[in-house]
């Protein structure tokens, strides 16, 4: 029986992610933030209040709510977890170029598009799985410590959060396909993250940036409908990054 190269590459990527413990690290990290975020939201005000009492100061903080737990969850996943995610993804293509394993694969009847697509598909699947796990943990703990958040709102919040993470995974992937070393790919990925975040004050344009997805996620949890602009903007960025990666990688010479 004959089969195409794409599923073979997919299986190889999945196996590599498992054997290198990347999937495990990602899963544990996201589960941790899913569980810890409602806990932080619940106990941070009490800890701050206790610290103030020790100093003889009375600090009045608003009563923590389920919305605060969701906001904490979005912040944790979009900052610390994203940082780790970029770190784990920056070598996706460039490591194979550096180590010479890309040559071993590309000299077989495998298109460069299939080579890249399989890598990105597995990266995306890993992030999606991690967000689902994290979301389930966060939802359960928020329901236990506060009251159950609106399921629809929480799902929409996770959708926006997921797109935010996938956008940066794809731009990191682009830099990994373009760069000549993992360090360069990593530096460019972090710089692009900072740059996109710093463009948040650009008025109407900022509505289309991936950063807007985070505030949209928090609002969605409170029942506010999701805006379309950051979805279009992030989607366009994803398409551009992937097409750019394919075009540049097609011309790559070992």
């Amino acid at each position, binding site marked *: 029986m*004959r*089969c195409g190269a794409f599923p073979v590459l997919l299986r190889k990527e999945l196996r590599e992610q498992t054997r290198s413990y990347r999937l495990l690290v990602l899963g544990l990290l996201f589960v941790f933030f899913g569980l810890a975020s409602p806990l932080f939201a619940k106990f941070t005000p009490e800890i701050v209040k206790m610290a103030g009492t020790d100093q003889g100061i009375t600090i009045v903080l608003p009563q923590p709510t389920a919305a605060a737990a969701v906001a904490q969850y979005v912040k944790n996943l979009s900052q610390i977890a994203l940082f780790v995610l970029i770190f784990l993804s920056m070598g996706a293509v460039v490591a194979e170029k550096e180590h010479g394993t890309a040559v*071993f694969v*590309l*000299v*077989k009847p495998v*298109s460069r598009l299939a080579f890249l697509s399989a890598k990105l598909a597995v990266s995306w699947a890993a992030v999606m799985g991690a967000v689902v796990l994290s979301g389930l943990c966060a939802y359960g703990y928020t329901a236990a410590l506060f009251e159950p958040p609106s399921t629809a709102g929480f799902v929409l919040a996770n959708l926006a959060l997921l797109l935010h993470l996938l956008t940066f995974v794809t731009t990191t992937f682009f830099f990994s396909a373009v760069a000549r070393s993992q360090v360069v790919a990593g530096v460019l990925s972090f710089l692009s993250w900072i740059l996109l975040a710093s463009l948040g004050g650009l008025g109407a344009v900022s509505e289309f940036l991936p950063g807007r997805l985070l505030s949209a996620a928090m609002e969605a949890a409170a029942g506010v409908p999701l805006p379309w602009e950051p979805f279009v903007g992030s989607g366009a960025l994803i398409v551009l990054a992937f097409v750019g990666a394919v075009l540049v990688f*097609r011309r790559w*010479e*070992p």
Partner: protein
Amino acid sequence: MDAIRTSALVKSYERGKVLALNGLDLAVPDGSVFGFLGPNGAGKTTAIKILTGLVEPTAGEAWVAGEPVDNASARLRSQIGYLSQEPRFYSWMTGRELLVFAGRLFGTGAATAGRRADELLEMSGLTQAGGRRIGGYSGGMVQRLGIAQAIVSEPRILFLDEPCASLDPLGRRDVLGFIARLHGRTTVLMSTHILEDVERVCDTVGIIHRGRMAATGEVREIARRFAPPVLELEFETAEAADGFRNAWAEPSGAVPAEGTGALVRIGVADLAQARTEALRIIASRGLALTRLEVRSASLEDVFVRLVGGTP
């Protein structure tokens, strides 16, 4: 029919400042084991990378198995096998997993790929190590695994870039024996700078120098064409050899006698005339000769003559 053909192939880097290939015309007959010889930096690896579709030429054309070379041609790559100069594989895979993976990339089903992997592991002496991670393999084992993965699809054309470079003498013997067995079934293009390896397994040879073919043809024919036979004379003493060298320089002039100590080597265009002249000198000067031998030119003689020791 030629299995591999290039026409005026050019590859330059750094906006033309570095010329790796400078109009390479190459023709490799179908079914031959072709020795691609050249000093380091002559353009061997670049030419192989172009022929395997990994690198695009700056100018010129190339055909492999009748297909125009193009890095997007999966049809071309389904007919070739390739072992790079420093093969690198996924260190987290086992040897068997790598061979199955390589086979499946050619569209082979899982069961067939598994059987072929076992066959190749046995052929390359890696059956015991097949279940171990490649990260723990020695250089020689990686090289043998590299050859195994290169022939996993039973390719029509096999490109081997310095296949014996990191092997010990036993490993080298095994690999050369294996390449020799492919003769007539698979066209093999083997780049190397080890002349002895070419003489042992190759039927045709091409010498590349500064990005161009300096010579190409059958090994014996090329030796005959590019390097004259050598007259080797061994005298009883070094003084006698010196005496001969001095006398030889006078009448012949253009062909200086080489060699050290009691040994004298002379490359000759007209063997009969040179032999007569040598014997005349020896007799007239009363030099004590212990041996006189006519040797055919070796590939090394051709290589030195064409390449002259410069890259």
